[in-house]
């Protein structure tokens, strides 16, 4: 500097300034510590126990990798790895093209009834995966209507697992691909059109690259879902062994927790790989879409729209046939001998059978998971995104929040037994309670909910908290007066997501329920094992019905909210 102004003095290298903490900062940071501690106890602890158990023998003596050697020396168990990966690959290979074409029709054609197709395409989410297995047994099983179509092949086994899994994973893939196709930039197509590009070339050079990350992400989700799912192979898998069922057999059948831990780690690996690939892809997808992009608007094209309409109709009918068969089975006397209408599966099978209580357990559990889960997940995401200080703790919470997506439910459930059933754990009173079912479910579905919350919070002006501080308004007041009302749609969405999943989940909770906290989805499994397929279908129908009611309620509440309390969303022309 040539001539510094008179008022300036060079910097004194004084001591580093340590800011004073306001009690509100302390409060926020204290709450973050609580959030982090909760995630450590209910996520990291159980997972760590699996690692510990896998290198111990039954008496708790450290044996290194002996258990693993033992495991890989058993041909039947080795076969399970191969089986699991084969089935998951086939399911991924079929579901992704099916869902992509469906999503493509929804976004790029002008066919009629798009809204209806979208709803039908997503219905499998409302059903427990067991429902698909039961339904396919009804269609193609020993006494199935269309058994002849299989030409002597058995539906019990790989075939049954594959078709049931396609049904169960279809909506998950559809949602992800739909989102990535909706993100397309209409300007690219206009530019291509102005250059006289052919339709096929536009598809190859714009559509596919644009949806690439969504496709990979969907493939990873479908793959991990199939690898992790326990209900489908249990019901329709026959003698075809897969890893998720192996864990169940080791733990429940043979009470061999250590071997169960070993299988868990083997199961964890492919899912973790898929999870990491997905994580990387999601980061890329975000940077790909510019804020200035213009949504693509399809133009009517007769033959193409017609073709797409036919395709979607076929897929929708197939999906409805699966759901419909289960519902139908629940309302007839005795398949396939007496097809007359009857409520006996509900009255006799469920109520007199004494298992209707498990449906109410499920409802209680799902409402508790939706309520407390949303409270915790949104609150934690808020503290994470909108308060200041403790950067290391924040990074740790972010990491913990991302983990559950990469952990199969069976693994989490086994971790919970090992961790909470440990005599030295002060929390072991939780074991066999409703609370532990709620906790495991919230943790199991944490990542998606967390991402929904973070996305909604990031969309808010980052200066709201600064403005509040300048006006001397405590952060929690701004939280309840501004943040929560503005984020209400996202909050309700998280609640609905947790509810629906809590109703259908089986993998984590199958290890954790007690006789008086048994859940509906577990009951389906028991009824199926007992040969009560009508009652099992009735229970599945009840689950679908209650999830449907909650989803309709959600749609209704959101609509009322948007028109009434969120009047500010609708801009009126400025005067």
């Amino acid at each position, binding site marked *: 500097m040539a001539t510094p102004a008179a008022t300036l003095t060079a910097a004194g290298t004084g001591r580093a300034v340590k800011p004073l903490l306001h009690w509100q900062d302390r409060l926020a940071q204290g709450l973050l510590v609580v959030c982090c501690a909760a995630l450590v106890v209910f996520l990291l602890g159980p997972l760590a126990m699996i690692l510990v158990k896998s290198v111990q023998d039954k008496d708790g003596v450290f044996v290194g990798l002996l258990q693993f050697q033992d495991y890989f020396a058993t041909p039947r168990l080795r076969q399970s790895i191969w089986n699991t990966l084969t089935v998951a690959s086939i399911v991924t290979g079929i579901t992704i093209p099916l869902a992509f074409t469906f999503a493509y029709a929804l976004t790029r054609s002008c066919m009629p009834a798009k809204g209806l197709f979208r709803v039908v395409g997503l219905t499998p989410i409302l059903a427990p995966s067991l429902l698909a297995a039961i339904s396919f047994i009804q269609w193609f099983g020993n006494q199935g209507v269309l058994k002849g179509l299989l030409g002597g092949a058995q539906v019990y086994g790989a075939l049954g697992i594959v078709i049931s899994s396609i049904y169960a994973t279809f909506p998950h893939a559809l949602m992800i691909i739909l989102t990535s196709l909706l993100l397309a930039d209409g300007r690219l197509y206009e530019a291509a059109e102005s250059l006289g590009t052919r339709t096929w070339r536009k598809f190859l050079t714009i559509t596919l690259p644009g949806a690439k990350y969504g496709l990979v992400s969907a493939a990873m989700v479908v793959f991990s879902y199939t690898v992790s799912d326990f209900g489908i192979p249990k019901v329709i898998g026959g003698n075809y062994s897969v890893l998720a069922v192996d864990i169940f057999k080791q733990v429940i059948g043979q009470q061999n927790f250590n071997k169960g831990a070993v299988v868990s780690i083997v199961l964890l690996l492919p899912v973790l790989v898929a999870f990491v690939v997905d994580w990387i892809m999601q980061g890329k997808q975000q940077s790909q879409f510019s804020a200035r992009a213009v949504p693509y608007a399809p133009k009517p094209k007769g033959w193409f729209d017609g073709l797409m309409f036919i395709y979607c109709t076929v897929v929708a009918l197939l999906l409805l046939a699966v759901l419909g068969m289960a519902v139908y089975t629940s309302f007839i006397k005795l398949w396939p001998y007496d097809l007359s209408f009857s409520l006996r599966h509900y009255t006799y099978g469920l109520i007199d059978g004494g298992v209707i209580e498990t449906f109410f357990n499920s409802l209680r559990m799902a409402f508790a998971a939706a309520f407390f889960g949303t409270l915790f997940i949104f609150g934690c995401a808020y503290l994470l995104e909108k308060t200041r200080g403790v950067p290391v703790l924040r990074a740790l919470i972010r990491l913990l929040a991302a983990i559950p997506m990469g952990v199969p439910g069976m693994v989490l459930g086994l971790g919970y037994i090992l961790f909470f059933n440990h005599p030295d754990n002060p929390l072991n009173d939780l074991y066999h309670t409703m609370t532990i079912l709620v906790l495991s479910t919230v943790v199991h579905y944490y990542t998606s909910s967390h991402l929904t919350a973070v996305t909604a919070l990031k969309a808010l002006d980052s200066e709201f908290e600064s*403005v509040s501080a300048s006006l001397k308004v405590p952060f929690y007041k701004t939280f309840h007066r501004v943040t929560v009302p503005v984020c209400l749609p996202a909050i309700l969405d998280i609640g609905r997501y947790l509810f629906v999943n809590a109703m259908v989940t089986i993998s984590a909770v199958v290890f954790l329920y007690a006789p008086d906290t048994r859940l509906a989805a577990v009951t389906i499994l028991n009824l199926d094992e007992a040969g009560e397929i009508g009652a099992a279908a009735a229970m599945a129908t009840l689950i679908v019905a209650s999830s449907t009611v909650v989803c309709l309620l959600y749609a209704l509440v959101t609509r009322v909210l948007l028109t009434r309390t969120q009047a*500010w969303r609708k801009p009126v022309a400025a005067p």
Partner: protein
Amino acid sequence: MQRSPNGNAEPYLKLDGISKNFGKFQALCGVALAVERGELVTFLGPSGCGKTTLLRIIAGLETQETGTIVQGGKDISRLPAIRRDYGIVFQSYALFPNLTIFDNVAYGLVNRRKGRKEITARVSELLRLVGLPDSGGKYPGQLSGGQQQRIALARALATSPGLLLLDEPLSALDALERLRLRGEIRALQQRLGVTTILVTHDQEEALSMADRIVVMNHGRVEQVGSPRDVYERPATPFAADFIGKINVLPAIAVDARSFRVGDLTLAVAPVGIAAGGAARLYLRPEDIAVHVNGVAASGPNALPARVTKVEFLGAFCLVGLAPDVAGVPPLTANVARQAVDAGGFALGAQVSVDLPPSCLRVLA
């Protein structure tokens, strides 16, 4: 320069030795500054110069690594934002979208346990003050950008803070609205007498609104002075280049009052650069006098030149000049539109140019 009634009194806001790093990037490097009570100071500089960081440190939204801040005689260096006394307006307005304009302005008042009546009176007063008396029942999304920024200003002023901080408040607005709001904010600030700091990268905004301008670059203060000071007597090459258009002539000192530029010797106001020392001479385009049609310039620094370009800019034209003296770089002069219309500025025309010694600013 505006001063408090007794010029010796402690300044209202005093910064000393403020430093801040973001990782390896040094955002601020030993910044010291004094702001008098009731004055409007602008932090002016290119993006990344540290001006917003400095404002956020004053607000307590960032913490400096070293340095002290004293506001109204009280050391606030370590205080959290919520304990400090200021109102703030952001470029994004940051109005709460789900609250009405009334509730937005009343946001800080409600928390101070004031009566409903008192709050209503204060809010109406503020809405009148910013010229939007009837907007209380609307939502922010229903107002234009300029109107939203007025409401943000009203909200910041509602609790009568001792210090008003404006972080690029006009940058998101269109040109016309920006111009209008610029005048309104300045008038309001003068009427209320509130000490104000305005962060901007727009030199015109800084020149037109400020009592004093703090020119910043690379985390350092380059110059502090009144708008005229900074424009007419830039203290550093950066200040000279950043604010307004300026001609730069590399020169060698001949003696205390003359410099050589190529084959030309220019007289300047006396400076303390030893003979043979290198320096640069700075001259505003509007300070160059251009004589046409064979009229010779009469000043001591006259030189012949040829017109190379005439760029029409409305009220005046920028005239490109190629001096007919070896080693003198091309010059740009401002010439009034009427003068250009009068003729003599055809491309290639011979002119006589005068570089007034009093206007040549010498910087080492």
